[in-house]
């Protein structure tokens, strides 16, 4: 009772063309895609360009050559993906894009709304610390989601002149948490007045938390971040943890939504130009209260986190939970 072409789902092949793959977020996203694809019964083909944008564009062409029915583009650069995606659309293939704007009206845009993520975390910081505090900020420019979160940070600084940013740092040297911890150590010892650290990426937050604890300032500094994983939950729940809140979408849910939006396109329905997966604010207090210790429990106890009610036509089968 699913619409064509899902009346014969085994004939349907979709491709996931990824730009980023290393790390928990991307692994969880992939698992969401896999589960929703399995629920639909379609064949999934994964192309991993491993942060090679040029290769990613080629992989779209490969998918075209293989004759897939639909493509999910996961991250990437607008400039390199635009033409490739256009070629796919021209070939009659349905395409959705997650977290990359391919500037194509035929391609719905799946978003986890980085601006909302940053906004939720910062609003919690205002709630916890008032409107005036000394801040440290972790940022590496040039990375699209971080750049979008940075816009929100600037907005906030404009809106609350009491926020005094005394240090900005950040690095993507591997392992990121270790490298950021080294920097954060120097920053907190040079600026002992910092009370709030805005680290809008969980790897950054981990690093900052390690440094703050090492400096023995765990009770003086509060950390606000974005994204969440099982390991993050454990760190937020450590006794006296400075990591107060994080805002996140469930990457697995985003993966599911991506497949569902694509399926709607294939079935001739319109998911809308933008499919936004709303983020959830997760605070330390909340985790302790509900005694949440991993992502599964987070999903179980925060229903908003385990399922997003977007791209949900009536016929859509959901993965078993």
């Amino acid at each position: 009772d699913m619409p064509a072409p899902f009346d014969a789902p085994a004939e349907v092949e979709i491709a996931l063309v990824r730009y980023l793959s290393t790390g928990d977020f991307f692994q969880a996203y992939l698992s969401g895609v896999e589960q929703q694809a399995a629920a639909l019964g379609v064949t999934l083909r994964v192309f991993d360009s491993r942060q090679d944008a040029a290769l990613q564009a080629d992989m779209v062409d490969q998918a075209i050559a293989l004759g897939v029915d639909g493509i999910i583009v996961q991250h990437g650069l607008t400039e390199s993906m635009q033409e490739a995606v256009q070629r796919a659309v021209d070939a009659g293939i349905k395409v959705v894009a997650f977290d990359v704007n391919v500037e194509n009206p035929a391609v719905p845009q799946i978003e986890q709304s980085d601006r909302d993520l940053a906004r939720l975390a910062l609003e919690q910081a205002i709630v916890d610390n008032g409107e005036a505090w000394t801040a440290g900020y972790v940022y590496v420019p040039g990375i699209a989601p971080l750049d979008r979160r940075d816009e929100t940070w600037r907005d906030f600084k404009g809106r609350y002149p009491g926020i005094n940013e005394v240090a900005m740092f950040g690095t993507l040297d591997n392992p990121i948490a270790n490298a950021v911890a080294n920097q954060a150590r120097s920053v907190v010892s040079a600026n002992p007045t910092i009370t709030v650290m805005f680290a809008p990426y969980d790897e950054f937050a981990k690093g900052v938390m390690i440094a703050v604890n090492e400096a023995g300032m765990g009770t003086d500094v509060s950390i606000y971040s974005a994204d969440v994983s099982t390991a993050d939950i454990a760190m937020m729940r450590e006794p006296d943890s400075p990591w107060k809140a994080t805002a996140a979408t469930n990457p697995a849910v985003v993966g599911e939504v991506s497949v569902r939006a694509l399926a709607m396109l294939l079935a001739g329905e319109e998911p809308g130009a933008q499919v936004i997966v709303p983020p959830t604010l997760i605070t330390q207090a909340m985790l302790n209260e509900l005694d949440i210790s991993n992502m599964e429990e987070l999903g179980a106890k925060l229903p908003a986190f385990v399922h997003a009610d977007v791209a949900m036509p009536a016929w859509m089968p959901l993965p078993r939970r």
Partner: protein
Amino acid sequence: MTARRLSLVDLAIRYGFLLLMAGLIVYFSIVAPAFLSPQSAVFVFQSVAITGILALGVTATLVVGGFDLSIGAVATSALMLSAYVMVIWEMSAGVAVALCLLMGATVGLLNGILIVKLRVPDLLATLGMMFLLVGLQRIPTEGNSISTGMALPGGGAAQGTFSPAFLMLGRHRLDFFVENLVPLSVVFLLAIAVVVWLFLEFTRHGRLMYAIGSNAQAAGLAGVNVNRYKIVAYMISGTLASFGGILLAARLGRGDVASGNNLLLDSVAAALIGYAVLGASKPNAFGTAVGAVFVGILLQGLTMLNAPYYTQDFVKGAVLVVALVFTFALSGRNGRGRV
């Protein structure tokens, strides 16, 4: 005492690697039939075009007994520079290409001078240069990627664009039996491979460069201008790396700060695999090109089999080790002392 008659072992040494590659192709075509299309073949070449070009540059420095760790950074610097020139200074594609190549050659020259005149050991000099460039390329934009419309520090937005002529370098496809089949970047890879191969193998200069790599002292005493050739090798390496960066920029269409992280290791791997091809046991352009394509085939095949990304690294490493053990253990001699 070198037997002219080719024994089985000799054959294995000479052709073992190519055989392995053929075996892989056969295997992949059976388990993933799509592997054997012209598109797929072109894709293999295209996916390694940029690393291949960088690897050919590294080969030139390996030939003179040197090593260049700065190639990855040179490529990303060229990526940023070309974007800067076109998007912020709003100049033409020609200027961008010229400035990038000049930059690459200059970095090569500096590397060469550091190593030859100031006697800094090669790994050290090029490692320092690498760090320096990685930082330098981000200073003008304060770490931001460069794209049309980006906010300028002075206020306003950048109006320049990547010119179509420039983008063509990375994106245009030539008709070859099938329409729109062969991308220009593949043509560049093949052309550069052939030129570097001819240069190293058949010209006086190439021969002298091999002589330097083998025994610089003896070459110098025979009247070879050792320093000049070494500097030239680093300039070749820098120039090719910057050309790789230009192609990358043309493919990306943006000065992306996050791209090009793996270029160094992948191209070094290709150049080193080249030692095993045809039992050369020394750096050589043909081997380097084959090495690059080999890695491309492997990754393409694994992708077709839906292997997760981390198994690709694993298989790459395992095949590399096995293929090389095979070659070097059988040939019973060490490669060139230097590596």
